[in-house]
């Protein structure tokens, strides 16, 4: 009886129903917003599901259990009925489970279109919807609706139903948003202005797609300067996420709440198993033996690098001048030099391993990124250059005289020359050695040590060979007055190295720091000059050392303020690298050229001059609409460090070209020729 009365009330209060079905635990009614529709024109249908009191129905994603309503339409002619729009759902906890649904009547809105011909819009429906209290009862119903096709007439009696249904829908959102999946964690970032987030006290995100989050998990909201972030747990083994879309509900300080349709950009972040387990696949797969071989060859090539060669020449020169030495002495020096290099490499590797363990994003050559280190190296270069120029004689230790002492000094000097060669060599290592180092840095400690030992051996090999083979020693030019000239000549590459280091230093710091460094250099020269006046007098020598120490302290104490690097200045078409920006450019199907560089990387600078910034390349960029992105690795940057690691590199340079529409880049070689970039662009243009 009560049911009949209720239905009777429903009948009178609502407009003319197109169809109605009464099932065991609920009823379903269909209305249209028109009493008569024009042929081929759109209109709306409303399906109202009214469950028994205390029973509930489900949203389009029902959550842990349950089922969303299913409507199977058979339509006359070319009429259409679209997917229903759902009112904002609620959380319905049920023991350990959570469902998404409604605990009262709901009205779904369906877009429809009348057939282009005929006299009526006819649709027969097989509907299935689930109604649950604790137990669930599927509700099934088959019904047919009919609406005359003719002049358009609005059903004014139904307008209230449609109005109410529309106001129950989530609002469209004008905020940008990202849904980031990181293993078991999921976070929704909604970008809002600070005044919009001020009043938000809580929020909840209802995902439309399965597998996005654990429905029963708490969602924690945090307000960030960019907006809000909702974090939730994602169950292990959840189905793959198809879309990030869903409904965001927000509760404000005044108790009001609002719901928004969100379609966030879905970002899936691959989680590395452990810190030492770098992503395995993209790292060039080379075996340990390949790595050892490359390390050895790379070390050999290093001998020819401009930043190493002067020091090695210096050593060669020392060998020539030491022709009077015994073979045993020479061999000793050769090994001292090798050990010097090896120990320096091991020291750097140890530091790298410590930093790697600490999770700091550093690349090979990282020492040159420390302004203090750069400053000290500049200082050292000037001192070495001045010595070569003949201002004074460098003695790596206490000055002494006598044959036997000279021999000892030679061994010690060789050792320190090895140290020097290794320290200066590291920035040059990266371009040649990137795959081996990239490989090594993702490997167990033992493998890293082996690879780097061979790198050191390669660097030391020519001189080790020289120290062993009398034949080689005999090829060497005879000592003579020319040696002084050669020595003086070798000062100039040193001065140039110092100049380059000064350039790097000033780019990293600024004018004030530059002044400090120049003052320190002059201080060192002054100290040397004082030292020369000493002639064995202790107080003056102490003064000289004090001045030198003060000069060094001037740099080490870092009395300057380091500026924040603003990348991407200068060239017209450059965009500063950011992963987000790159993704959005790729989403737009744009071709993108990304280059990673650093001020201290000579290879990078040469590549840029002859290839990247060459007019032919720039023209090719312009013609193809290629966006050029620059990643500046001069100062450490975790984001770029991650990109380098992903491509199996420990340092710059790295050149990536994404052809239009591609998601995966073409990786260019580390040494570019004038046509390297243009030829890549042309080969991909036609594909």
């Amino acid at each position, binding site marked *: 009886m009560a049911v009949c009365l209720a239905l009777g009330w429903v009948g009178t209060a609502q407009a003319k129903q197109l169809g109605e079905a009464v099932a065991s635990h609920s009823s379903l009614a269909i209305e249209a917003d028109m009493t008569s529709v024009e042929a081929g024109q759109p209109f709306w249908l409303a399906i109202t599901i009214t469950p028994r009191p205390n029973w509930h129905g489900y949203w389009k994603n029902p959550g842990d*259990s349950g089922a969303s309503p*299913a409507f199977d339409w058979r339509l006359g002619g070319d009429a259409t009925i679209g997917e229903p729009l759902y009112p904002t759902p609620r959380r319905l906890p049920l023991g350990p489970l959570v469902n998404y649904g409604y605990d009262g009547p709901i009205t779904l809105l369906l877009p429809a279109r009348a057939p282009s011909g005929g006299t009526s819009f006819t649709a027969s429906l097989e509907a299935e919807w689930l109604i*649950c209290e604790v137990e669930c009862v599927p509700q099934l119903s088959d019904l047919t609706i009919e609406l005359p096709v003719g002049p358009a007439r609005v059903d004014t009696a139904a307008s209230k139903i449609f109005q109410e249904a529309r106001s129950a829908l989530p609002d469209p959102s004008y905020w940008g948003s990202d849904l980031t999946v990181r293993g078991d964690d999921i976070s929704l970032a909604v970008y809002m202005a600070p005044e919009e987030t001020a009043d938000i006290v809580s929020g909840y995100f209802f995902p439309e797609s399965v*597998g996005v989050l654990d429905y029963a998990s708490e969602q924690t909201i945090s307000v960030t300067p960019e907006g809000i972030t909702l974090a939730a747990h994602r169950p*292990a*083994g959840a189905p793959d996420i198809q879309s990030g879309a869903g409904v965001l509900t927000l509760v404000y300080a005044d108790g009001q709440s609002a719901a928004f349709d969100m379609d966030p950009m879905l970002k899936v972040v691959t989680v590395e198993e452990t810190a030492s387990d770098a992503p395995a696949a993209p790292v060039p797969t080379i075996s340990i033996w390949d790595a050892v071989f490359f390390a050895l060859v790379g070390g050999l090539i290093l001998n020819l690098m401009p930043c190493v060669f002067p020091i090695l020449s210096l050593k060669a020169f020392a060998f020539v001048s030491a022709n009077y030495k015994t073979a045993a002495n020479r061999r000793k020096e050769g090994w001292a030099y090798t050990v010097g290099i090896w120990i320096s490499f091991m020291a750097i590797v140890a530091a790298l391993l410590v930093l790697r363990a600490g999770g700091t994003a550093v690349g090979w050559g990282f020492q040159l990124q420390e302004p203090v280190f750069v400053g000290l190296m500049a200082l050292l270069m000037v001192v070495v250059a001045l010595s070569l120029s003949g201002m004074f004689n460098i003695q790596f230790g206490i000055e002494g005289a006598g044959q036997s002492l000279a021999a000892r000094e030679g061994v010690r000097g060789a050792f320190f020359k090895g140290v020097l060669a290794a320290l200066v060599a590291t920035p040059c290592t990266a371009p040649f050695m990137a795959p081996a180092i990239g490989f090594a840095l993702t490997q167990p400690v033992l493998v890293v040590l082996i690879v780097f030992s061979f790198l050191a051996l390669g660097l030391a090999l020519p001189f080790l060979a020289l120290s062993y083979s009398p034949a080689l020693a005999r090829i060497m030019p005879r000592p003579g007055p020319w040696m002084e000239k050669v020595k003086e000549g070798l000062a100039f590459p040193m001065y140039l190295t110092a100049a380059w280091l000064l350039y790097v230093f000033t780019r990293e710091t600024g004018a004030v720091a530059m002044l400090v460094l120049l003052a320190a250099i002059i201080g060192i020269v002054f100290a040397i000059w004082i030292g020369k006046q000493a002639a064995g007098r202790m107080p003056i020598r102490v003064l000289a050392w004090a001045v030198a120490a003060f000069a060094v302290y001037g740099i080490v104490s870092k009395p300057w303020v380091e500026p924040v690097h603003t990348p991407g200045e200068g060239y017209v078409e450059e965009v500063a690298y950011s992963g987000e920006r790159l993704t959005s450019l790729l989403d737009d199907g744009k071709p993108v050229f990304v280059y990673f560089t650093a001020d201290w990387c000579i290879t990078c600078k040469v590549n840029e001059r002859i290839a990247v910034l060459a007019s032919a390349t720039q023209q090719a960029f312009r013609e193809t609409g290629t966006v050029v992105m620059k990643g500046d690795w001069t100062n450490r940057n975790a984001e770029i460090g991650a990109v380098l690691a992903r491509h199996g590199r420990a340092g710059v340079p790295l050149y990536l070209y994404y052809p239009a529409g591609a998601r995966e880049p073409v990786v260019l070689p580390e040494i570019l020729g004038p046509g390297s970039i243009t030829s890549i662009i042309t080969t991909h243009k036609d594909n």
Partner: protein
Amino acid sequence: MRLIFAIITLLGVSAASLADGPAPGKPAPDFTGMLTSGKRITLSDLRGKPVMLEWTNHECPYVRKHYSSGNMQRTQRALTEEGVTWISIISSAPGKQGYVEAEEAEKLSVSRGTYNDMLVLDPSGEIGRLYGAKTTPQMFLIDADGVLQYMGAIDDRPSSRESSLEGATNHALQAWAQLKAGEAITPNSTQPYGCSVKY
């Protein structure tokens, strides 16, 4: 009757608690459950044979769709004939929908003509919670090495209508066929549908 009740209350679940529920590609959580016969069964003792777990509740309309149509029995038969051990699990709590005692459970098996190998009674819901079972029906396919290979719905038609079975993709059959062929199982995780497990 009392004896059976006592047996059920004695039902022990010894399982290494997994931090974060089951996931395809990871070892399936181990459990010990009580069969209707009163015997104990431990999942890890079945190592060497693939195992299918089926959460069920005979009063759930979605389960009924699969049993009254014969779809579940056909699926059980297909897998068990090929050497899969099929374990049906009832996690309904006493007094809740789908809760049965051993005697009634056995009767149900006979009347429905099931092809499962074992029926585990889990009235405390411990096994259900261990696996994060959310609905009936819900399936978990475990390979001979004890690694979970598929979890989720039995098919891709979340409906209680028998007519929905026509043209449906049976995920349980598909996952088994792919496992047998040594192929990658796709999908290996789906959202299960049906009645909530009545914990």
